[in-house]
């Protein structure tokens, strides 16, 4: 089998307002199934995807946030959150439903440069 490639998924959109966040989770799981080196990066409004306590009964939409907790079972453990984006939204690390690594924009840029494949959502 060929060597694993470094895959980065870049999330920049809030959940529910568009279908991007939900659809991207499917793609992440496919990549993980092929034993790739997967990183998930949450920038801008994408950081809202990881907010704890999502209650979607009122909007009659599937709450897909528990899926982020399941990622660990697929060996997807590299989750990065943009520090500036988090702070502009009044959020802290304790607000997220999974453990994350908080990186500055500059560090995010470097991480992006190290990837073989970058997919944007």
């Amino acid at each position, binding site marked *: 089998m060929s060597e694993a490639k470094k895959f980065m998924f870049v999330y*920049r*959109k*809030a*959940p*529910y*307002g568009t279908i991007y966040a939900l659809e991207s989770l499917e793609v992440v799981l496919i990549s993980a199934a092929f034993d790739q080196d997967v990183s998930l990066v949450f920038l*801008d*409004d994408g950081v*809202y995807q990881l*907010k*704890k*306590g*999502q*209650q*979607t009964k*009122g*909007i009659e*939409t599937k*709450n897909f*946030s528990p899926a982020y907790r399941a990622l660990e079972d697929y060996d997807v453990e590299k989750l990065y959150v943009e520090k500036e984006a988090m702070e*502009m*939204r*009044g*959020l802290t690390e304790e607000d997220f439903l999974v453990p994350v690594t908080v990186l500055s924009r500059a560090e995010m840029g470097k991480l992006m440069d190290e990837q073989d494949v970058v997919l944007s959502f």
Partner: protein
Amino acid sequence: MLHIINKSPLTSVTLDSCLNTATGGDIILIEDAVYAATSGNAAEARLREAMSKFKIHVLMPDLEARGLGDRLIDGVSPVDYGGFVDLASNNKTSQSWL
């Protein structure tokens, strides 16, 4: 008049356009616009300033879906779908800032 906003204040200028253009009345924040009404968001100061001109409402089911039902800024009025309908029917006109 009722102004309806559905975009996040940090990814779109629709809230700013509304606040800069409209002269007063009701504003309802729905879908991703509800983030504007959460404490600590970069739009908080602008929203507070707008309260002198507008009555600001937020659609609670959308805020709860996003896990932020407990972060609503004081002075913003929480409404459910029925409340949204009342706002639409009590105002002569409405503008959706899409």
